């Protein structure tokens, strides 16, 4: 196997914190886990929160710190959504792994690692597991609780069935604040020899909305494309965010009350290849913050935005949905009646 080029390693992996105490901004979790490291006692855990806040990082870090590189392979099972995780896997793979007892006498510290006498099963992206598979886990968790600890990681806790959630200690991961994000990004850009001005830095924090992984990925993409000095504009072009002028132009067309003008704008946006779902969320941002729009108008617009978003998820055509949104926005802004006059 040819050696992996150092530079081709994603920075997200390169700068992933190796120790629990390095995980930024999640004080509660860090405190509990540091405690675990000392007492080597730990409950089943459920980490939930938005993407890019350090859930997987924390789980991997604690597993590494507990067992060290030698025992890691035999003690930790990592499963995520790309592995098949139907009910069969729960019945066979997880059960088999859990059923193997930990060798007696191995509870002593080895090579400076605590090495507690249990195994860890990390189920990443657990919210994409089927309900059946989750149900099959319930009893397994209890039967083998002497020798195994489960770490569930998910974005939406509501998709984890209650019986599983109640068996775990739950930890919510908060979105990162802007300061912490900036300091991490500055650290990385210093290590990589990048030149990032203050404007670009704040743009990056606002684009990524508390998702550190996204921020780092954008930074790396921009660095690859535009070299070592990165401006605010480069970051926006890499991130796929739609330039504010485009959004403004559509809204101005809507305010004018001229349907054909709005239709032309919509055509233009689709031809430029801007993702419509992104467009919807940016329209929402502008509408919610606007001062010259009444609450009722805002409500009408937002309702349609939500419907259109759902339709897009179902796979509806982007042009038609955006046109519908634009026409509805126009009717709201120009105070045209909400009901259609000729609907028979």
């Amino acid at each position, binding site marked *: 196997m040819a050696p992996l080029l150092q530079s081709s390693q994603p920075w997200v992996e390169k700068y992933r914190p190796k120790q629990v105490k390095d995980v930024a901004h999640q004080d509660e979790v860090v405190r509990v886990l540091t405690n675990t490291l000392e007492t080597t006692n730990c409950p089943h855990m459920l980490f939930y929160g938005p993407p890019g806040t350090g859930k997987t990082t924390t789980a991997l870090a604690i597993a590494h710190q507990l067992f060290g590189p030698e025992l890691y392979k035999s003690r930790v099972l990592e499963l995520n959504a790309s592995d098949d995780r139907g009910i069969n896997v729960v019945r066979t793979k997880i059960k088999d792994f859990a059923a193997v007892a930990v060798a007696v006498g191995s509870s002593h510290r080895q090579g400076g690692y605590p090495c507690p006498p249990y195994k860890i099963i990390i189920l990443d992206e657990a919210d994409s597991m089927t309900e059946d598979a989750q149900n099959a886990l319930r009893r397994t968790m209890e039967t083998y609780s002497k020798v195994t600890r489960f770490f569930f990681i998910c974005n939406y806790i509501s998709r984890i069935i209650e019986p599983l959630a109640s068996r775990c200690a739950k930890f919510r991961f908060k979105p990162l604040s802007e300061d912490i994000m900036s300091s991490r990004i500055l650290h990385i850009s210093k290590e990589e020899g990048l030149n990032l001005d203050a404007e670009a830095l704040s743009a990056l924090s606002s684009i990524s909305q508390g998702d550190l992984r996204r921020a780092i990925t954008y930074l790396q993409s921009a660095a690859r*494309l535009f070299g070592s000095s990165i401006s605010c504009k480069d970051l926006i072009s890499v991130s796929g965010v739609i330039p504010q002028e485009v959004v403004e132009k559509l809204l101005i067309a809507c305010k004018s009350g001229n*349907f054909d003008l709005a239709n032309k704008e919509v055509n233009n946006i689709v031809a430029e290849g801007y993702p*419509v779902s992104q467009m919807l969320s940016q329209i929402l941002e502008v509408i919610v913050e606007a001062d010259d729009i009444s609450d009722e108008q805002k409500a009408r617009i937002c309702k349609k935005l939500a419907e259109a978003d759902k339709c897009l998820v179902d796979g509806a055509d982007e042009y038609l949905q955006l046109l519908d949104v634009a026409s509805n926005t126009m009717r709201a802004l120009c105070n045209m009646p909400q009901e259609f006059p000729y609907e028979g």
Partner: protein
Amino acid sequence: MLWVDKYRPKTLDHVMVHQDIAQNLKKLVTEQDCPHLLFYGPPGSGKKTLIMALIRQMFGPSAEKVKVENKTWKVDAGSRTLDIELTTLSSTNHVELSPSDAGFQDRYVVQEIIKEIAKNRPIDTKGKRGFKVLVLNEVDKLSREAQHSLRRTMEKYSAYCRLILCCNSSSKVTEAIRSRCLNVRINAPTDEEIVKVLEFIGNKEGLQLPSGFAARIADKSNRSLRRAILSFETCRVQQYPLTSKQVIPPMDWEEYIAEIASDVMKEQSPKRLFQVRGKLYELLINCIPPEIILKRLLYELLKKLDAELKHEVCHWAAYYEHRMCLGQKAIFHIEAFVAKFMSIYKSFLIATFG
């Protein structure tokens, strides 16, 4: 050979439309540090051309020797084995496939077949270019599960395999995948750019272009370069020397839909609806995608309607198109749209003229 293929730029340096993107891509490749890529943009904007040129830039002319294979894969899906048939296009260094062709079994394609392809690494004595490129078309048509499976596969095999994903709308690609790729937005070429390309082709073919002719084709093309070149060639075949007054033939299906639109405007009755149904079936039988029929129909209707009706009609078009993706039979929903339009238009006429 069609002009579309004949004048497809082979290298990144010869690309005429997206030169800035091409230069950036070239820089990426020459630094030997190519991330996963996601190309998105409307049809006919040049995504595929850029991808092929990029692969050629990576591997040299050998990338052009492609063979088409129709392979059957045996996939072990727990309790049963599945046979999945897929057409792949491959050269020594790259493989191209459309996983969404496998329908609801696309998850297995992503989980198994990609792994298999990724494992077969090309052997290179110099230890250089030790990776394969996997081009996946129409990722926006992949099911949710398949996209979920893709994300881990992407990370796991990133050392041996670079993925190039290609799709029309990036809204339908999950955030998890988008954040793992370098996203490249390919916009549709502007009319001026299309004119430039048409003039270039005219020059190469030794044709006399009357002034304004290329601009007229570009105007009719809906900002799709492929379509512009095709209709340019049609004009050339139809009549040469080209004259400035020559009609650019519209697509026959578009004319047909325009006919339907004027039918619907003229009379609103169950009888007319029945006639329109026959025409709609005709279009569907000729493999015009239903959403395109609906969009074109809306376009034709909007041209003729009063401003106050436009809002209502476009709302119902969006409504029925959404229903169409959820449902099975497209004809029901197109017909429902036509019926709805008739009822709206009729009550509009009654309200206005009594």
